[in-house]
Structure formats: C-alpha cells, structure tokens
C-alpha cells in the first residue's frame, strides 16, 4: 500500500493532540467536583461555545469519514445522509432544546420523570440511554479500527484490536479527569480543527477545478464504474420497491434521530438558560451546513482524484476516502493532520457518549431508582466514574467486534433507536398534559423494543452476504432500517396507553409546573 503515509508522523501528530487536550482537560477540571460540574459543567458554557461543541458531538467519525466515504462511493445516495443531518437540527431547535433545558438538570431521565412516577420512568429512560449510546459507540469504535488500519498500516486484527483498546483508554481518561467541562473543551477544539481542515481542503479542491463543483463531479464520474449514473439516486439503494422503502425509512430516522440522542440532549444542560440553549442550536446549524457543504466537495473530490475502486480496495474501505484524498493533495503531512483530526473526533465523541451513559446510570438508576433520590452526591459521582470505566471497556469490546462495518450505516441504526425511544416521549411529556406514567413507559419500551426486534430480524443481522451473520437466515423484516415502522409505533403506543389508562390527578401540580417551566423558563432554576 503506497497510500498509508508515514505511520510515525501520523502517530506523532496524534500524540501531540492527545497531550495538549489532556493538559487542557486537566486545567479545566476543578478539584472539588459537584454533580453539576461533572454532569453539566456547572452550566457555565455560552451558547456559542456549546453550539460548537454540539456540532462537535455530531461531527463524528461517522459524518466525517462515513459521509465523505459514502459520497465517494455512491455519489448521490451518500449525499442524502448529509441533508437529513442538517434538517434534523430543526427538530432540536423548535421542539426540544428550550423545554429540555428548562425542565431537566443532568439527564434525559430528569425530563421524562419530571411529572411521572419516578422509579419506573427513570429506569426506562436509563435503559434507553444505555442501549442507544452503546449502538452509537460501537459505530465510532468501528470507525477507529478502519482509520488505524489505514494510517498505521496495521492490518492484523490483533494489532487493530490493541489500538482500539488504546483509543478507548484515552477516552475514559478524558471523562474521568475532565467530566463534562473537559469533554466539552475537547469537543470544541476538535470541532474547530475539523471545520478548518475540511474548509481548507474544499477550497483547495474547488480552486484546483476552477471553482466549479460541476467540474469536480464531471471528473468524478470518470473514476466510478457507474459513470454519470452515480450522480443520480439509486447507486446504493437500488430500485426495488423494498430498497426504496428502506431508503425512506433511513431518511426518517436521520431527521428524527439526532435531536433524540442522549449525549446531544445532555449538551443542553451545559448552558445557563433556554435562550443560550437556543443560541447553541443556531450555532450548531451553521457549522453543520458549512461542514456538509464541504463533505460534498471532499466526497466527489475523492472520487475524482483517488477513484472509487482504489478507495474500496484500501484498508478501511469507504471510510478511508477523506484520508486518501488528503494524501493525494497534500502528501504525508496533510494525511497526518487529517488523520489526527479524525482520531480526535472519535475520541471526543466517544468521551461524550461515555459521559451520557455513565450520567444516566449514576443519576437515574443509582441515585433515583436504587437510592430513591437519597444518594450522597459524592457517592453518585463515584458511581458515575466507575460506570464510565465499565462503559469504556464494553465499547472497546464492541468496537473490536464491529471493526470493518460502514460507520454511517451503524449510526443510522442508533438514530432509529433514539428517535423511537426518546422523541415521542419527550414531545408528549412537554406538550401533552394528559400524558401519564403508563404512556411514558409504553412509548419508551414500545419504541425501543420494536426497534430492537426489527433490527434483529432484518437483513442487517442475517440472511444476505453483507449481514453480521451471513451463514444463517432468520430475517423476516425486509428493511435494513426499522425507523419507518418503529418511530410511528412508539407514538401510537404512547398515545393509546395514555388514553386507556387512568389520569394521574396526584401529578397535577407537577404537570402545571412542568408546563410553565418548559414554555416560559420561569422558576426553572428553583
């Protein structure tokens, strides 16, 4: 492989990044941590800072490596992902961000259990958070595996496994030392670097082709065996009735899933009030638009300059399109920089996920379900840190197992889960006064359960060559992405279960408080 660059250079750039960020995380962390510091950075970030961090949470390996790779391999069909991911922020802006900020403190469970019976709802919310975060995390770690394979020319599965484990350990360090504050700073630094990196690459590419996107795409078609057809829809999803439905299902999950991801939701607690939460989504939307415009250029640029066949043959496959392009236009140094940024991205996103998962376990399960709300704050944080270590170990194992899958696709499953379990429940609890505990439990478990079952019995798990278990066939659900069924199903479950169960008059006062706080923000800090 001539395209791996200089492994020593790649590693040193990355090591420098890790050392600098670890130092910043160490400086940012305060010695005497309260729960609010650890989970929500003491709500001390500004809207702009949090907005950049928010986009950082979403500009993951999946979006940078997965999307540019998807465009480089499938043209139009890869581009569809990015459209969904930009539009999705509107759900967060209009329906969720402010209400969530005004009614919760640390976790999604805070909001969902606000006016419901605490223990069952908190347990359900924590279950959903853990399952969603785990899926999302596997996707990130799988991305790390592919990247390592490419950059360090480590082709043995064992070598890659050791490196994935190293990535996991550094990530846990960030969380343990820095809590939310440290993780947010890493996220901000990384998002700025990533944006600079993709912007400069795009401007360079556009300059090379006389500032004509059409010229880049025209040359790209010459390096793809589909020719001009790659610019039209269908290169990846095909034209059968089922594949079209599958595509619509995926699109629905993309647009509804993002603002339901636990680690994204948790970000809204790091700002002092709802107006800042709103400001952060505005910032995030801008950065996402710029970023995805750039991935469009980078994806087609990689197809034009590197060629789809060469990308597919590289270690890491599709995910290696952006690094290969960097090598093509900037040689070893640019490859080193791009890979360091990509590594940093994985580290930062996984750290955010770990934090969300550990917060949910410590705050919802330990403090509120097990200790019934009487946990000592210091013990709660100790539990959170322990959980972070456990989650880190699990994600290392999962990442090693999923090494090699297309990460954008894995992420779409996590998004379907998030939209199914969280979105319906959050919207109902904020905007529908009659909604009750039974409805909450049904919409969480109905969405999460149906989504999981449909994934297990879909072609993703078994039946076809690309399945996780290709040799057996127990698939009866035809769609690769279950969102089209499971998202409406969870809305329906929540609605019917509420209608057919008794109202909870004893919760009337809490319901009034939630409505006033969610909409007006007054009394939100009491």
């Amino acid at each position, binding site marked *: 492989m001539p395209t791996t660059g200089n492994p020593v250079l790649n590693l040193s750039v990355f090591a420098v990044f890790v050392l600098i960020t670890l130092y910043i995380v160490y400086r940012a962390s305060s010695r005497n941590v309260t729960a609010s510091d650890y989970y929500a950075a003491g709500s001390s970030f500004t809207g702009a800072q949090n907005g950049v961090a928010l986009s950082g949470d979403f500009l993951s390996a999946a979006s940078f490596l997965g999307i540019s790779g998807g465009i480089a391999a499938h043209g139009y069909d890869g581009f569809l992902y990015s459209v969904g991911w930009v539009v999705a922020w509107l759900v967060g802006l209009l329906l969720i961000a402010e209400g969530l900020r005004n009614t919760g403190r640390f976790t999604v469970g805070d909001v969902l259990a606000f006016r419901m019976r605490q223990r069952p709802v908190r347990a359900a919310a924590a279950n959903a958070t853990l399952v969603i975060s785990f899926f999302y995390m596997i996707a990130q770690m799988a991305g790390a595996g592919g990247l390592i394979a490419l950059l360090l020319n480590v082709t043995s599965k064992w070598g890659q496994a050791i490196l994935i484990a190293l990535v996991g350990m550094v990530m846990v360090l960030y969380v343990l030392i820095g809590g939310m504050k440290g993780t947010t700073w890493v996220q901000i630094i990384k998002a700025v670097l990533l944006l600079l990196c993709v912007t400069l690459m795009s401007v360079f590419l556009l300059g090379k082709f006389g500032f004509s996107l059409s010229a880049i795409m025209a040359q790209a*078609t010459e390096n793809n065996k589909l020719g001009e057809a790659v610019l039209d829809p269908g290169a990846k999803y095909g034209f059968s009735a089922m594949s079209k439905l599958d*595509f619509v299902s995926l*699109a629905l999950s993309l647009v509804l899933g993002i603002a339901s991801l636990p680690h994204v939701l948790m970000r809204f607690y790091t700002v002092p009030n709802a107006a800042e939460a709103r400001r952060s989504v505005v910032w995030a939307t801008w950065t996402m638009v710029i970023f995805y415009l750039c991935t469009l250029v980078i994806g087609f640029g990689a197809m034009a300059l590197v060629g789809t066949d060469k990308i597919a043959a590289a270690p890491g496959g599709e995910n290696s399109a952006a690094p290969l392009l960097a090598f093509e236009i900037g040689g070893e140094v640019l490859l080193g920089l791009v890979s360091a940024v990509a590594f940093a991205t994985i580290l930062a996103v996984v750290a955010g996920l770990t934090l969300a998962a550990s917060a949910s376990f410590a705050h919802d399960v330990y403090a509120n379900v097990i200790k019934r709300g009487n946990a000592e704050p210091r013990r709660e944080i100790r539990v959170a840190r322990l959980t972070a270590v456990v989650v880190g170990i699990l994600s290392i194992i999962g990442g090693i197992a999923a090494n090699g899958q297309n990460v954008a696709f894995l992420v779409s499953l996590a998004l379907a889960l998030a939209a199914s379990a969280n979105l319906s429940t959050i919207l109902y609890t904020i905007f529908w006064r009659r909604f009750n505990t039974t409805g909450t439990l049904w919409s969480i478990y109905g969405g999460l359960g149906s989504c999981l079952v449909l994934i297990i019995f879909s072609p993703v798990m078994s039946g076809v060559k690309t399945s996780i278990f290709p040799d057996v066939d127990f698939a009866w659900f035809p769609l690769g992405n279950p969102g089209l069924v499971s998202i409406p199903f969870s809305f329906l479950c929540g609605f019917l279960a509420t209608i057919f169960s008794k109202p909870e008059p004893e919760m009337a006062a809490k319901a*009034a408080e939630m409505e006033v706080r969610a*909409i007006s923000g*007054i009394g939100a800090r009491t």
Partner: protein
Amino acid sequence: MGAAHEGQGYMTKAMRSPGEAQHEYREIRGFASFDDPETLSYIHSDGTPKFELIRQTEEFRTLRRRLTTFVFPMTALFLASYLTFVLLSAYAKDFVSTKVIGVINLGILLGLGQFVTSIIITLGYARYAKRRLDPQRKLLAEKTGVEE
C-alpha cells in the same frame, strides 16, 4: 377577584390536547379565587412558585399560544419539505436526475435547497423568539415575581 376569574374565562378557550378536556383541576382554581386580588401572590410562603396559578395568567396563555402557533406549523413545513425531497429521490428518479448546471442535477440542488431552508427557519425562529417570545417571558416574570 380579577385575575383568577379572568383565568377561568380563558380556560374554556385554551388549546387542549386530545383526551384532556374532561380532566381539569378545579380544586386548585377554587382555592385561588378566595385570594384578595390586591395581595394575590404567585409565590408560596416557602418560596416556591404557584405554577397552577401562573399557568392560568393571560401572559402565560399568550406566550404558549405564540410558541405553539410558530413551532408546530414550522415543524410540519420543514418535515413536509424534507420528505418531499426524499420521496422524489426515491420515486421520481428521472425527474431529479435532470441536469441543471453542468452535471449538477436537480436532486443535488433540491438537497442544497434543504440546507438553505434550514438556515432560513433557524434564523427566523431565533428572530421570532427574540421579538415575540422573550419579551413575553419577561412580562410574565415581572407580573408573577418569579425569576428564571
């Protein structure tokens, strides 16, 4: 009796979710109407706000109406526009494959159009919130004496 009665009058006009109509909390409102309007307080003696009372103020109703009349239609709008783009890509391949600028086809332009509408709606909401929602929140905070 002013404030509390005004509240009752508006109750019938308030927007309700399906299935909610039969379920109101009269005892709490009844208690409120015995207060002397001159000394009507929105804060309990222990410092916690009386949310049920605040919920019935005209200021809060206006705020809620302004919020929901913006966010729900807007959500319907952007979801419809996004799904149109998706359905066209899936079921009207020849149409979206029409070349417009060089090899750039209609589908890519429609996709980029989604970027543009997202920005417009985002900025539109930020502006609306600043002009129509935040001042109303301030009004409500002043009236009730409950801070953010």
